[in-house]
C-alpha cells in the first residue's frame, strides 16, 4: 500500500513536470523571434469611414487619432516573423519604403527593441510584447499616412 502511494505521487509529479514543460515558452533555446506587423493607413478628417480590415484596430485608432481623423482606409498590411536583426518592409502609397528591424529583447524587462527606417529618418524604440505604436506625418494627396507597428514575441 505504501509503495503504491509513493508510485502515485511520483506519477503526479512527473505529469506536472511534463505539462509545465509543454507550457513554458520555447524561445529560450533558439533566441527570441518576433512577429512584426506593419499596417499602412490613409487617414483623413472626413467623411467618417473605417475600412473593414481595420476593425480590430478601431479602439487603438480612436484613442490615438480620434480627435484628428474620422476616415481610416487600409492601404496595406505586411507581417513577418523575424529573428534578431531581420527586417520587415512595406512600400508606402507615396513610394517611400518603410522598414522595421527587430533588434532583440531587453534583458531586464523583456521589451522588444525595434528600429524604424524611412528615408533619412531613423528611430529606435522599445515596446512591450504585443504592443502597438504609430509612425505618422507623411502626406499622400489629401490623406496623412499612418503606419501602425505591432510587435509580438513568437512562442
Amino acid at each position, binding site marked *: 500500500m505504501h509503495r503504491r502511494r509513493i508510485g502515485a505521487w511520483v506519477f503526479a509529479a512527473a505529469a506536472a513536470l511534463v*505539462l509545465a514543460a509543454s507550457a513554458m515558452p520555447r524561445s529560450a533555446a533558439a533566441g527570441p523571434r518576433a512577429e512584426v506587423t506593419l499596417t499602412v493607413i490613409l487617414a483623413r478628417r472626413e467623411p467618417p469611414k473605417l475600412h473593414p480590415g481595420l476593425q480590430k484596430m478601431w479602439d487603438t485608432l480612436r484613442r490615438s487619432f480620434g480627435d484628428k481623423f474620422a476616415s481610416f482606409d487600409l492601404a496595406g498590411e505586411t507581417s513577418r516573423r523575424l529573428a534578431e536583426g531581420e527586417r520587415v518592409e512595406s512600400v508606402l502609397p507615396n513610394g517611400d519604403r518603410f522598414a522595421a528591424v527587430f533588434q532583440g529583447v531587453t534583458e531586464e524587462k523583456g521589451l522588444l527593441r525595434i528600429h524604424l527606417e524611412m528615408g533619412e529618418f531613423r528611430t*529606435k524604440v522599445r515596446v512591450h510584447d504585443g504592443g502597438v505604436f504609430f*509612425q505618422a506625418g507623411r502626406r499622400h494627396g489629401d490623406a496623412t499616412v499612418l503606419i501602425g507597428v505591432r510587435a509580438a514575441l513568437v512562442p
Partner: protein
Amino acid sequence: MDRRKAMRIADGEAPETALDPRLAAEVKAFRDLSEEIRAAATPRREAPDFEAFFRAVEARYEETRTASPEKGWARWWKALRERPLWWMAPVGAAIAAAALLALTAPGDRAPDNTCFVDSYDLDRGSVVIDQDLDDPSRATVIWFLEEG
C-alpha cells in the same frame, strides 16, 4: 474352515452341492462382496456431465451478479472512495499545470502599448512624440513632420 470353503465355493473353485444353510449364507455373502468390489473397481464408461456442471456455475454467477447492489457507476464510485490517490494524483497534477500556465502564459489581457523612444535621427524636419504614459492602452504616435 467353513469360511475358506465358502470362499472357494463362491469363487467357483469347489463344487456347490449339499450346502447347509449357514454355509450357503456365507457363500452368498462372499458373492455379494465380490460383486460390490468388482463394481467399484470397474471404471465408468459414460462421460461426466459437464453440461450440468456449467449450468450450475452459470446459475451461481448470475445469482451473485444480480444480487450485488453495486453496479456500473456505483462500483466506480466505491473504488474512487476506497483509493483517493487514483483521482487525487491526476487532479493535483492538473491544478499544478494550470497554475504554471496561468503564471507563464500571457493570457487575454489588453496589450500594454507603452512605447519608449530611445533615439531618433533625421536630416531635416522635426519629430513630435505624442504619448500618454499614464494610459498604457493608448498607442504612442511618432510624428515626423517634414519642412514646408
